[in-house]
């Protein structure tokens, strides 16, 4: 994978496994994937799928128990990786007694590269005073300051764990736009985890889906969109779907609705629709839940 003609990877893992306690369950297991550089990656999965664990591993806050993970082909936590990767954790911890200016000064002091203008621009866009104390800011404003801290170091890879969770829809749009601009202008690779699928639809061009600690999907978003079909037809046409991957199916009376990953043209008298990326992702997340339930029932 590290050969000269291998595509440069923003995030790469092989046999990656992690558990929080030596005897505990695996939070991540046998994860292998490659996210190319320059992509905006949606990291999706249900609660407890291992998204935050993966981002903490990539940010160097945790160390893998098995396998390896590389960010920009560097080992997370090394000085090289720290200088080029920014991580915004879910709780966005900041010093409450610091002013916003102090917080940005901390960024300047702790990083080798620092773009004060860029950091201040992110803060100012949120109409936050530089002399305000971080502890007095709203959660949304705090997120903005934390994001300014992450963007100020001019990272080549930006890891964001649930960055939008406590933002109102208007601010979400603004922040998404800011991230898009960053990616477009500077070629920054971004990996962001989110449960808000609709907003990932327009921005993300790579999907990394985790399911119970394993990688379910790591693919180009357009490929996913193009290869999935939402089929509606008579239930007795079910046989014609052999050879394709049926993600979810639902029978109502004699009518069958199925979301299918097509492996070539689909035969039969089906009403065919192109599902949205959101629908594809939801279907895969539901399928994950259904299989788990089935496995539990079987066990």
């Amino acid at each position, binding site marked *: 994978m590290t050969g000269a003609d291998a595509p440069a990877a923003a995030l790469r893992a092989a046999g990656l496994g992690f558990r929080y306690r030596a005897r505990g369950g695996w939070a991540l297991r046998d994860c292998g994937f490659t996210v190319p550089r320059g992509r905006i990656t949606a990291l999706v999965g249900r609660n407890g799928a291992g998204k935050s664990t993966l981002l903490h591993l990539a*940010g*160097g*806050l945790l*160390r893998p128990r098995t396998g390896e993970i590389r960010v920009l082909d560097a080992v997370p*936590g090394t*000085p090289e990786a*720290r*200088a080029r990767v*920014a*991580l*915004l*954790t879910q*709780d*966005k*911890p*900041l*010093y*409450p007694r*610091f002013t916003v200016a*102090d917080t940005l000064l*901390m*960024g300047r*002091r*702790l*990083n*080798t590269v620092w773009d004060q203008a860029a950091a201040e621009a992110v803060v100012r866009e949120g109409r936050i005073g530089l002399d305000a104390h971080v502890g007095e800011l709203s959660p949304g404003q705090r997120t903005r300051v*934390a994001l300014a*801290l*992450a963007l100020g*170091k001019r990272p080549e890879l930006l890891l964001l764990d649930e960055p939008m969770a406590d933002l109102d829809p208007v601010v979400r749009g603004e922040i998404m736009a800011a991230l898009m601009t960053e990616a477009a202008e500077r070629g920054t690779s971004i990996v962001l985890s989110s449960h808000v699928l609709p907003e990932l639809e327009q921005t993300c061009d790579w999907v990394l889906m985790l399911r119970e600690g394993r990688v379910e999907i790591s693919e180009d978003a357009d490929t996913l969109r193009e290869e999935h079909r939402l089929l509606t037809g008579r239930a007795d046409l079910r046989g014609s779907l052999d050879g394709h991957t049926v993600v979810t199916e639902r029978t109502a009376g004699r009518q069958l609705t199925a979301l299918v990953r097509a492996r070539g043209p689909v035969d039969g008298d089906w009403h065919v629709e192109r599902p949205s990326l959101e629908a594809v992702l939801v279907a895969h997340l539901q399928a994950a839940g259904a299989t788990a339930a089935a496995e539990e029932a079987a066990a």
Partner: protein
Amino acid sequence: MKGSLWLAWRQQRVLVGCAAALAVVACAIAAYSRSGMLDELRTGLFDTCEPGPLYCWPDGANGPLFLDITPLQYLGALNIALPVLIGVFWGAPLLGRDRELGTHRTVLAQGVSRGQWFASRYALAACCAVVLSGLLALLFRWWWEPAADHSYGLFWYETTALSGSGPRTVAGALFGLAAGTLAGLLARRVLAAMGWTLLVTAVVTLAVEWTHKARVFVPPHRYVSQGIAPKPPMGEKWSTGTYGLITATGRRDDVLSCPYPSGAELKACMARHGYVARFYEANPAGDWWSFQWTDTALLGGLALLLTLATVLLLRRRV
């Protein structure tokens, strides 16, 4: 490293300020009180006082003479409590505050490694602890000097003089810091870390005091006088309270077997029981340094051990 030192300073500057203020106030009180002490001594009233532990009561005086050493004893008490104070208010929040807020994740996501994050803040705190405790220990020594080892002053073996000055004060401060830091790393909550630190440092401080009283590490010397010859004067020695009699075979009995201070009665009693000598046990004044060095080794060793534990746990816990 420069950046993480800046952050360490930014987070600890209030504590550094408090420590500096404490040192200034202590110095001011010491200078004022010590000059008062010297004035008293210059009156000549104390010149007739004999060395030794007996109260000095010159003819015509209303009672025994004393210098005002209460503020000096307060400083000694402060020095003894220094491990607890530094541990609770400086050590416990050192890593505990970041752990509680989760801010170490933000810091570590910048260009700072775990090692730098820990080393810079611990180094700053340790330097301040050494400077503060060293200053207070020297201050005590200087202030104590005119009153040292006199019945109107403070003997070397009194708790505040024995444990409230010297190198063991510095070792104690470092021990408190190390204990608090480890507690902060393990407890994840500043308040819980403070509680644990208070418990551990207080217990260790009291245990060290007990080793002094029980002479665990610095055994007392036995002073023997043959027959009814007068015993060597106690003077500045720290008595264990053990007095006794020795037979020709070397057996030692309690002094109550012949409870007479001297004279014919004592002679008769000793002859009756076959005692050939009398003895008492005490630590000579030079043992101040022995107590100091054993304490310094004990507390310094504990500080080193706890720091090592913190460094080893840092990788797994943060």
